[in-house]
Every structure is written in structure tokens, then in C-alpha cells.
């Protein structure tokens, strides 16, 4: 089993951020990742691939009325960020993304070479 989705510890200390919850599923075609990014609109979402790392970042924008005071707060930072390391068998050029109701779905396909192949055993 090749686990290519190791979590990177967040080292970016400049902007405090929330690590979004994710589900990661692997099948023969590639890796599918779901991330929870509630309150992030499409234009405030940033998904990028640099070298072998995939970064998901988003700004939370709520409609706040003027003069609103916080009474009880569980989400304190309006910033989501998380990075993953992509394995060599994945093709970062072909990442497909869907974003709906605060859930991001990413599919990273495997390169043709890395797809599992069944090898016929010949009986001599």
C-alpha cells in the first residue's frame, strides 16, 4: 500500500489557521479527497500544486451585521489551510476539483505507468 497523503505539520505561523477535516480514498484510478470548508465561497478557495505538494486554502466569509458581538465561538479563525505530499505515482497536471456547499472534492489521477496491471502467469 502506498500512502501518498501524509499530513504535513502546519509550519506557517504567520496566519493562524484551522486544519480542515478530510477523507482520503484511494482506488485504481487515483486518489479522491474530500475536505470540509464551511463558509468558504468559490472565489475565496485556493487549491494549488507546487512540486510534490498539494495545498488547500480558504477564507471564511460570513455575513456579519454591523455591531455584532460574539457570544459563543467555536470557529475562531476565518482561515483554513492544509497541505499534503503527493506521491510520484500521481499526476498533478490532471487534478479535478468540485466545490459545493462547503465541501471540496478533489480527484488526483495516477499516471498511466502507476496504474495496477494484472500480469498473466504463463504456464510453460
Amino acid at each position, binding site marked *: 500500500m502506498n500512502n501518498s497523503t501524509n499530513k504535513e505539520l502546519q509550519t506557517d505561523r504567520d496566519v493562524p489557521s484551522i486544519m480542515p477535516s478530510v477523507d482520503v480514498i484511494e482506488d485504481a484510478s487515483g486518489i479522491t479527497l474530500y475536505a470540509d470548508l*464551511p463558509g468558504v465561497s468559490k472565489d475565496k478557495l485556493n487549491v494549488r500544486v507546487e512540486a510534490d505538494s498539494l495545498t488547500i486554502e480558504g477564507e471564511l466569509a460570513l455575513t*456579519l451585521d454591523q455591531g455584532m458581538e460574539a457570544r459563543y465561538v467555536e470557529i475562531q*479563525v476565518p482561515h483554513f489551510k492544509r497541505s499534503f505530499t503527493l506521491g510520484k505515482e500521481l499526476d498533478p497536471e490532471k487534478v479535478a476539483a468540485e466545490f459545493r456547499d462547503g465541501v471540496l472534492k478533489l480527484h488526483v489521477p495516477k499516471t498511466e505507468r502507476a496504474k495496477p496491471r494484472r500480469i498473466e502467469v504463463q504456464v510453460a
Partner: protein
Amino acid sequence: MYRTLFPGDLFAEFERFQREAQRLAGPSTSLRGLGRTGFPALNVGGTADSIEIYAFAPGLDPAKIDVSIERGVLTLSGERRSDLPPENESTTTHVKERFAGRFSRAISLSDDADPNRVTAKYRDGVLQVSIKRSEAAQRRQITVQ
């Protein structure tokens, strides 16, 4: 590569997560507000004429979210379907952190909340419930004669 298989690291990671969750939740004074890792996460704010509740509940069908107020307690409940494929040999689930299943969260409202004037809207995975304060309870400026 197999870092997460070492138990030491796994527990350290879990502890870090709990600390983080605790830090994000902050001190709570409400008996019903202690669900630190509960789903959905809640933020509550107030203005002079309304109480605003934000529930961070991505990936839900708005028609299936149940919002009710009974005796001054607001309850949000529903179900979130898992996006994971059914168990089989050809797929492997590496990480499973997202909440799935039935949820219910409740908040005690202040006495001036008017249960007849409530609006709820769902946008980008956030449910915003807005409850007007009853007019009798609003601060009024009294002119001194």
C-alpha cells in the same frame, strides 16, 4: 512514509488535535454548549435587535436540516451522509476525519428571543439562524421631560 503507523506519533497527533479543539472552543459557560468537538461547530453572535447563530455544516441538503425552538432552546438536527465508498477490495480509505451520521445540537436562547420571528438560510455550507429579540425587551431611549 509510514509515520502514522507508530503508536507514539498517533497519540501525539490525537492529543494535539484535542488541544487544538479545546483552544478553538474556548471557555464555555452554557450547559448545552460543551460539545467541543460536536458537529456542526457553532458560533453565536448578538446585535441590538437579533441573535445570530452560525452552524458550520458543509455538504448538507438544506431541506433536511431540522431547526426547531421549544421553550427557549434552539435545536439543529439532521443527518450527514458519508462520502466514503462501501467497503470493498479495490478501494482503500486512508483518512477518515469528516463527520458522518446523525447530529443534533442545542443552544439555550436568552429570554428576549422571539420564537415567532426566526429565519434560517444555508449558504456555502453554513446555516445561519437569525432570531429577532422581542420588541418589549429592546433597549429604548427615554426622553427626560
